[in-house]
Structures are given as C-alpha cells and as structure tokens.
C-alpha cells in the first residue's frame, strides 16, 4: 500500500531556515527525522501534512553528549546510538535497558528517542523512563529557545507541548545526584518485538527514595506520586511491595484496546510494580540481575 496523500519535501541547510519554514507553514508542516512513526502514519492516513521538513542534515542535532551534569540526547540520536553509547551504559543503565526493548535492531537504527516522545503515543517506551529521570525537553522556535520539563511535555495521546514552528533540539537527562539504579519492565503479547501492553519504570536512589512511571496505561506516560510517597524512606518489605502494587493501580487509567483489556493491564501493573521495585532495589545494592533481562519471565512473585 502506498502513501495516498501528497506533500512537499524540503531539507533546509540550516536549523534556523527549518524553523522559519515550519513557522510559516504552521500546522500544515511536519518535522521528519527517523520517520519510523511518521511514514507509517502517512501510509495509514493518520496525518496529511502539506510539507515535510527533513532535519537529518543538522550536525548540531546529532549524537549523544554530556554537559552540565546531564546526558544530552540530540534530536537525531537513535535508539541504536543509545545502545552503543559508553556514557549511557555507565551512567544511565535504565535508559539503555529501555532502548534495548524498543522494536527491533532495524527500526532502532533509524528511530530517534526524541521522535518517540514527539509521536507521544501512550505506549511510547521512552516516556516512562524519561519521566523517572526528570528529563528536560529542549525546544527551539521562531521566538527562541525554551525548556519543557518532561512532566509537562505530554498533553494527551499524540499531543505534546510543542507549538507550531518549533523543533525539539534535544532532550537532556540529569545525572542522578545520588547513587541510583533502575528497572524497566515492558509487558508484551509475545516475546518478540511488540508495542507495550503496559510498562513500568522505576528509579531507586540510595536513601530509600523511589520514582515510578507507567506507560500504555494512561493517555500519556505518567508518574506515580502517591506510590512514591508511600515508599519514601521505607524498606521494601513484602507487605510494602504488595501495598505499593495496589496503590500504583489507582494511579493509572488503563483502557481496553487491541493489545489488552483494561482489567489485564491493571492486574499486571500490580505485579510489574512489585518486580520492578524489587529488581531496582537489588541492583542498587549491587546484587540484582543484569540490566536487559525480562523480569516478567522470572519465576518470582
């Protein structure tokens, strides 16, 4: 099946030209980076822009760096770049664990992390993980630059805080101030490359502080502030884990769709939260399983 809608394609020489073009064309224009979502949406007629602005040429948007004690993921950094980054492996293992669970190698070679949060589908894998890292989205537009905390970025399914004419230039991930370890759990219908039925990200800090976020169980990737408050300063006893799992379910609003029912999502999130917390805490203590394992396949409660 080919793409039915026709559009113009431009690849400006500079970022400021791209922004001018986007500002002029407003909502009729779309930014094209890896295109792994956008080309699919065009094919399915979910979007019908008049113009695509390809930003792949801009050197300043490429690669992964470290600045002001934060990881800088350029808008063109792919999930494969994340997986290959020594910096990420050493200091942001939760990010790496998530990247390894995104689609397949052939998609990850093209799909960008920034694109993932710009598509902003409820099941996007980067959302929950960037949420627990308190990431910041950096945007440039006709009126200059602005920074949007990830907590204010997602507005609804496929809706973000971006305004017409703006381009996301990077997302920065602050290095946790304390020793931290995490766990990303992605529930899928089968072992292969599936979109998430539900996902849970946990970041545990020394001093018994925990951050939790959920994917695919609400219109956007959300944090679990009540569960975080319950856990703060506490030792993770079996009883507390149980309680946390139950409370987490109250913080989500899952729906029934092609991948799962809302009942199943709720039941599983309870289990996922327990396992993610336990795994993150064990990793923090230096005795957890290696990053990248699927804790839903483990034989633990």
């Amino acid at each position, binding site marked *: *099946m*080919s*793409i*039915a*809608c*026709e*559009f*113009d*394609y431009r*690849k400006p020489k500079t970022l400021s030209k791209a922004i001018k073009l986007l500002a002029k064309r407003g909502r009729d224009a779309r930014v*094209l980076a890896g*295109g*792994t979502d956008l*080309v*699919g949406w*065009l*094919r399915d007629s979910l979007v019908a822009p008049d113009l*695509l602005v*390809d930003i*792949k040429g801009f050197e300043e948007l490429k690669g992964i760096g470290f600045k002001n004690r934060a990881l800088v993921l350029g808008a063109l950094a792919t999930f*494969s770049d994340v997986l290959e980054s020594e910096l990420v492996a050493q200091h942001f293992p939760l990010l790496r664990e998530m990247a390894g669970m995104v*689609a*397949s*190698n*052939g*998609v990850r*070679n*093209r799909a960008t992390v920034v694109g993932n949060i710009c598509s902003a589908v409820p099941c996007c894998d980067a959302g929950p993980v960037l949420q627990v890292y308190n990431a910041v989205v950096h945007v440039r537009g006709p009126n200059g630059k602005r920074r949007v905390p990830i907590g204010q970025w997602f507005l609804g399914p496929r809706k973000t805080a971006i305004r017409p004419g703006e381009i996301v230039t990077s997302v920065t991930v602050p290095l946790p101030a304390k020793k931290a370890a995490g766990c990303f759990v992605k529930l899928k219908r089968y072992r*292969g*490359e599936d979109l998430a039925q539900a996902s849970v990200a946990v970041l545990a800090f020394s001093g018994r502080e925990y951050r939790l976020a959920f994917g695919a169980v609400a219109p956007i990737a959300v944090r679990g502030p009540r569960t975080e408050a319950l856990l703060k300063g506490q030792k993770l006893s079996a009883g507390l884990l149980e309680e946390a799992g139950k409370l987490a379910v109250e913080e989500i609003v899952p729906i029934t769709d092609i991948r799962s029912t809302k009942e199943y999502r709720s039941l599983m999130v309870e289990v996922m939260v327990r396992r993610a917390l336990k795994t993150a805490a064990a990793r923090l203590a230096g005795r957890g399983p290696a990053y990248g394992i699927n804790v839903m396949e483990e034989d633990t409660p």
Partner: protein
Amino acid sequence: MKKITFTLNGESRTVAVAPHEVLLDVLRDKLGVKSPKVGCERGDCGACTILLDGKPVRSCLILAVEVEGQEITTLEGVGRDGPTPLQESFIRHNAFQCGFCAPGIVLAATALLEKNPKPTAHEVQEAISGNLCRCTGYEAIIESAVEAGRQGTARARKPAARKSANR
C-alpha cells in the same frame, strides 16, 4: 517530482520520485531491485531490509527522497560476485525454506558480522530481531551466522568459500 541520486550496490543511480514515494517501492518498481520484499509495510517483519550507509533499516519506513547522497546495499550487491561465506553457511545449514525472509536476514547478519566478526548466538538473535521467518524456527539461521563468524569474515569472497558450495 524530485531527482535524487544515491549509490545503489556500488553504482550511482539517479531517479525521479515524488516525495510521497516509499523507498521500498522505488527500489522494486523503478529500479528493478527485487530482493527487498514487500511484507507488512509497517516495520514489523524485516522483509524489506536494506543496508543504508551500512546499517540495516526498514525500507518500507523510508521515503525515497530521504536517501539523496547515501549508500544503499541490497542483497543484489552483497552477492554480486557469488555467494559470500555467510551465504554459503546458510546454504550448508539449509537455513531457509521459502526464502521470503532471506534477503533481510542475510543483510542484517552481514552488517552484524562486519561490526562484530565473531558474534554469539544471542548477538545474532538481537541483530536479526524483527526479521520474521515463518518457515524455519530460526535455529538454523542463527547457527549459520555464528558458524560463518567462526570461519572468517562475512564478505570476503575466498575461492575456498566458493568451493564449499559445490560440496
């Protein structure tokens, strides 16, 4: 229509495309390169895999206009001077049945072996993740790539390797 020029299997090619034309369709229908297959057309099956600047990607999720100036390798380019040792290994293991997935898997495994000449079974599995095969169950495919790694580089076309095909 836009004229784009890129390198296809070592040769410079120029073709006129409309911006909404998908690379997979342009390769197959305008340039006659038929090894990338039309499968799911949504990034899930890997049948349309090509190497773009050496990396396996899904040509069903790329617009043709995007590849201006880039280098594309399809199976036609990999096997141009006869089967590579990797392909010989696939033959020896009888790794494919209908062969629909083969171009994508050969390319994904070729790219892996260039980066990582002696991959483990797990690394092969990761590299061909999302390259679905509905016939074989993958075991022979994975073993072929691991063995090709053990025996030498993926692309080197040594006479010795040629011989094993006539075994």
